């Protein structure tokens, strides 16, 4: 809010008139970023203080805090106004983004104060994702740092179009124009190719307030506006109604059988009752019958409004789909190119399955190709196998079902996504879609007349996938072999996919790095799916050490019965048996990345069938699996009556 005097309100014909004026103010969302100790939090504290937005009790607390934790000597340490977490005040750094609100006579502002440390880059990106403008601070003494470049690059990647380069602590270089010009020139060269609309350099001293709210005499050579004057007047000409209509469906409102409305927020464009609209994924067309709100129906609605739309026809629409303009439709594809910023503590592994989430849609997806990592200093593209925490990459994404989207450059709301780890539910990446891949456009599903159930029916069985996981030498293949013999003898159509055998052929090109192990499992899962589709009972015998890939395999099978069978043999027993002499070699260091020795095995938390080989004989295990199959009616009517195999 903005501080006003009682007289100001009287002069403005009372409260309602004053508030009406407030309502018409425009809103600027910006963030402060840059390297550690460049004065980001201090600057925001100073802006709030100058705008007289610090209440008396807050000021008293601030003076108290400044004495205890402050880094500004006897002066007030304005950073403590925004560094709201205990750890932040103790360490004198910013860890997470803080949001602050203030207003002037001309404009309202939402400020995101973001951390400078590289390890908290994801929090900087969080602040940048909703901002129109970025203030990049640099310390006039230190000039442009690695983090200055990183934050500038991320700002450009996230579609921020206006940059203010605030050359701070100008008092510490004697208000030198030469020092300022040198940094401004270097920065101009740096940002040349990053596609910003405006880059404006301003000298300031956040601590003493020079050129923050008002111009400073000590900076007589600076002719431009003060920082606040600039923020009040910069034109944020974001694209508006000329963009095509996009309505991501959030929720279906269905209070009774007579009403079916699609609730959501208009992502771009506008729509009016009577307009033709199309369901993005199916292409089904309809007409807009009503725009419903609790305050009465509307004739039209535009970008930013949260409304409920009723269509004239009964068409199938659910959350994750989009209602769009028929003449300018979004892409609908399951393969696309994107830029991503990686936030995960564990690295991005191509081939590993993640949940991909757009504003309202969610599908399993994987990175099908990591085209490049972007070097933060040179902005050059380099080849890479994985992306580590805070790295930026160019990737190709494959989703399990098509999603509707626009390129991020055209629409931030419909062109963005995040990746979520399937095990920890952590948000591990943020993506900006560049364009759909041609393959997706040109490869269509071939409709086939003979389907999975027809193929299974002729074999008198239902397909299933039995996924054996466990350490090398745990006994997976032994059990799978015996089970297949029994199934075969009973007339079942089966196939075993065995880890070692597949690596001699289909997966001959793969090694044992984490990325290759993930790809190894992905290929086998896809193969198992084809075989199940052909009506077979598939036995997969693979170490498959990672939970994420086993979860991926389960999801991939869809309706097909899937059992995760954990062949649980302690490492010492496997190593003692060592049927192939592999443990001995691994212990001598002759095999790198051997599961259980140099590479982890993530045991299943809740396997469908848990075989403890120390406690039971292989035949018991087989009986348990047979029961599981019979319970799911997999082996046909001959099985259901308990007749066994």
């Amino acid at each position, binding site marked *: *809010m903005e501080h006003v005097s*009682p007289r100001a309100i009287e002069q403005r014909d009372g409260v309602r008139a004053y508030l009406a004026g407030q309502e018409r103010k425009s809103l600027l969302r910006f963030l402060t970023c840059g390297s550690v100790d460049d004065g980001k939090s201090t600057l925001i504290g100073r802006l709030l203080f100058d705008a007289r937005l610090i209440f008396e*009790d*807050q000021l008293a607390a601030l003076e108290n805090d400044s004495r205890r934790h402050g880094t500004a000597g006897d002066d007030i340490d304005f950073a403590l106004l925004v560094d*709201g977490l205990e750890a932040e005040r103790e360490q004198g750094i910013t860890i997470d983004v803080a949001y602050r609100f203030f207003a002037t006579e001309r404009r309202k502002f939402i400020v995101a104060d973001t951390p400078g440390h590289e390890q908290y880059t994801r*929090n900087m990106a969080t602040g940048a994702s909703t901002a129109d403008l970025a203030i990049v601070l640099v310390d006039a003494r230190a000039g442009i740092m690695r983090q200055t470049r990183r934050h500038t690059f991320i700002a450009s990647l996230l579609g921020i179009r206006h940059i203010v380069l605030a050359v701070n602590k100008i008092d510490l270089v004697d208000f030198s124009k030469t020092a300022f010009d040198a940094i401004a020139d270097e920065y101009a060269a740096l940002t040349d190719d990053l596609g910003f609309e405006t880059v404006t350099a301003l000298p300031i001293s956040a601590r003493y307030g020079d050129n923050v709210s008002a111009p400073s005499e000590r900076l007589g050579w600076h002719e431009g506006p003060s920082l606040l004057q600039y923020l009040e007047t910069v034109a944020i000409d974001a694209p508006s109604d000329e963009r095509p209509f996009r309505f991501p469906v959030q929720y279906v409102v269905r209070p009774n059988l007579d009403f079916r409305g699609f609730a959501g927020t208009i992502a771009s464009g506008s729509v009016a009752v009577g307009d033709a609209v199309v369901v993005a994924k199916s292409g089904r067309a309809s007409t807009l019958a009503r725009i419903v709100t609790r305050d009465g129906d509307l004739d039209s609605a535009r*970008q930013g409004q*949260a409304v409920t739309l009723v269509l004239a026809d009964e068409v199938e629409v659910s959350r994750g789909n989009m209602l769009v303009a028929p003449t300018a439709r979004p892409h609908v594809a399951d393969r696309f190119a994107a830029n991503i910023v990686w936030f995960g503590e564990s690295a991005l592994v191509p081939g590993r399955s993640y949940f991909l989430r757009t504003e309202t849609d969610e599908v399993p997806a994987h990175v099908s190709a990591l085209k490049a990592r972007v070097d933060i200093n040179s902005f050059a593209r380099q080849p890479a196998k994985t992306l580590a925490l805070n790295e930026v990459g160019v990737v190709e994404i494959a989703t399990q079902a098509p999603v509707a989207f626009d390129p991020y450059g055209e629409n931030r709301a419909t062109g963005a996504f995040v990746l*979520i780890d399937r095990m920890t539910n952590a948000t591990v990446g943020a993506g900006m879609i560049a364009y759909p891949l041609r393959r997706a456009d040109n490869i269509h599903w071939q409709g086939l007349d003979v389907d999975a159930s027809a193929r299974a029916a002729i074999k008198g069985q239902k397909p299933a996938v039995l996924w054996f996981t466990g350490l090398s030498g745990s006994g997976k293949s032994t059990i799978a072999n015996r089970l297949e013999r029994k199934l075969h003898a009973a007339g079942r159509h089966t196939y075993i996919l065995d880890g070692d055998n597949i690596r001699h052929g289909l997966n001959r090109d793969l090694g044992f790095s984490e990325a290759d192990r993930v790809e190894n499992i992905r290929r086998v899962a896809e193969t198992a799916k084809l075989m199940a589709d052909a009506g077979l009972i598939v036995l997969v015998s693979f170490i498959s050490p990672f939970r994420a890939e086993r979860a991926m395999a389960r999801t991939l099978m869809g309706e097909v019965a899937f059992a995760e069978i954990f062949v649980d043999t302690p490492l010492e027993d496997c190593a003692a048996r060592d049927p192939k002499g592999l443990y001995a070699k691994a212990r001598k260091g002759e095999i790198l990345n051997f599961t259980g020795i140099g590479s982890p095995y993530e045991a299943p938390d809740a396997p469908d069938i848990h075989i403890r080989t120390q406690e039971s004989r292989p035949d018991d295990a087989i009986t348990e699996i047979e029961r599981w199959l019979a319970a799911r009616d997999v082996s046909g009517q001959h099985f259901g009556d308990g007749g066994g195999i």
Partner: protein
Amino acid sequence: MLQKLGGYDTLTHLDRLEAEAIHIFREVAATFSKPVMLYSVGKDSAVMLHLAMKAFYPARPPFPFLHVDTTWKFREMIAFRDRMAAELGFDLLVHVNQDGVREGINPIDHGSSVHTNIMKTVALRQALDAHKFDAAFGGARRDEEKSRAKERVFSFRNAQHGWDPKNQRPEMWKIYNTRVSPGESIRVFPLSNWTELDIWQYILREDIPIVPLYFAAPRPVVERDGMLIMVDDARLKLRPGEVPRQRMVRFRTLGCYPLTGAIDSQATSLEEIVGEMLVARTSERQGRLIDRDEAGSMEKKKREGYF
């Protein structure tokens, strides 16, 4: 030289805040299996209730409303709560920490810190666990307090309801990660980006009913520890020398009456309240004893599961 803001030219500031909050309500209803709205009867809850009614119209909000009653709320708050539930027909759950009641926990003998912990924080955890709610709406705003300013709109809580401020999920664009494992939950704050002024302005614009205690009236108060405490019932034992006097006061925030300071005021209409607010020189939390207990006390309470 500016004015044409992208696509928003006809949306006012309050329109934008309203749309954002409605979007958040719908996102939760669409993705969680058992959400609940914390209804604390104050002005922020009144705004939240109003927004929830809008978000699902013509359907009703598809979740219940939970009031954690410390048994020390102003009597007018309880009367107002029951009237709203009856008028709007929403599903109201009231939870009281019966262990605390048995032990006679109260803000006067045990102090604000113990009382708040047992009757609010622990009580809230009890209610959330008992009903297995996986998402809970709260009315907190980022402008209220420094640690609130750091919190996400969708704020992840572990199975013990704890907040880990150093390890929050990145929250990019309007894409909210709503995935939780069994036992874990998300606190959701649809009013994150509202200021106190926005709240009042919206109440004025939408004519939202609020508890009468927000309006100035003659009330019996005593001065205690530099605050004006209203004598709402006989449980407030008077200290030597304390004599309740009728004074024209109102409340900027509402909580447990022995912990909530009134302010001198002549504002008997919404316009007058907003007028007073605009020239206020102290923050609204100043009237709350519970936030003064110790430095960083809000963050500490939040890490323990407080809203």
